[in-house]
């Protein structure tokens, strides 16, 4: 398995609270991605990073922000969580951009009550 650790693995929180999810990699890959997975939607890209401090929006970025201060860590923040953000969040990494394989972590299950 690719060296990807997501934390926490499970979290329950209340509407309106800030939440930060962490993705840590040991592969020294340049690209990192955050996806959310919901029934009937597959996985949808939230944000991605192509280097330290270099990030860009994905398909469903509203309500989310990201930061990458080190190659190995990519943080996803929900500034004020809403029930619609209840989902399973996956981090992925890729050695280079373009059409190279992306390898996924095992996800964080987030419930917002």
């Amino acid at each position, binding site marked *: 398995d690719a060296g990807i650790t997501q934390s926490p693995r499970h979290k329950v929180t209340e509407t309106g609270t800030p939440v930060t999810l962490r993705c840590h990699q040991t592969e020294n890959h340049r690209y990192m991605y955050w996806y959310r997975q919901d029934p009937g939607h*597959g996985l949808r*890209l939230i944000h*991605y990073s192509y280097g330290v401090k270099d990030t860009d929006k994905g*398909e469903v970025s509203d309500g989310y922000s990201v930061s990458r201060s080190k190659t190995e860590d990519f943080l996803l923040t929900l500034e004020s969580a809403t029930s619609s953000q209840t989902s399973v969040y*996956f981090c992925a990494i890729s050695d280079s951009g*373009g059409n190279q*394989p992306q390898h996924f972590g095992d996800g964080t299950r987030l419930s917002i009550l």
Partner: protein
Amino acid sequence: QQQVKQSPQSLIVQKGGISIINCAYENTAFDYFPWYQQFPGKGPALLIAIRPDVSEKKEGRFTISFNKSAKQFSLHIMDSQPGDSATYFCAASEGGKLIFGQGTELSVKP
């Protein structure tokens, strides 16, 4: 708007049979088409991938067939086994941004 449409939503196959999952896309700028396999509680794992200049790619029991003119591609699992029971996702990429299909839940009966 679903850019990658996947069917069927669920599939039941007998052990030893062939499992076929289909995907269709609209964006002709897509230039990389991976398939992922996901088991419960785990992240998606890359199974096999193809580029549009190739019509077929085979790895073991898994084959991707790609029809560029029809904008369709499919995954064939030969000699399906109970251990293949999982959710399968097709995806299409433009510049490294993956767009996923909705997923197919495959169940292989012994």
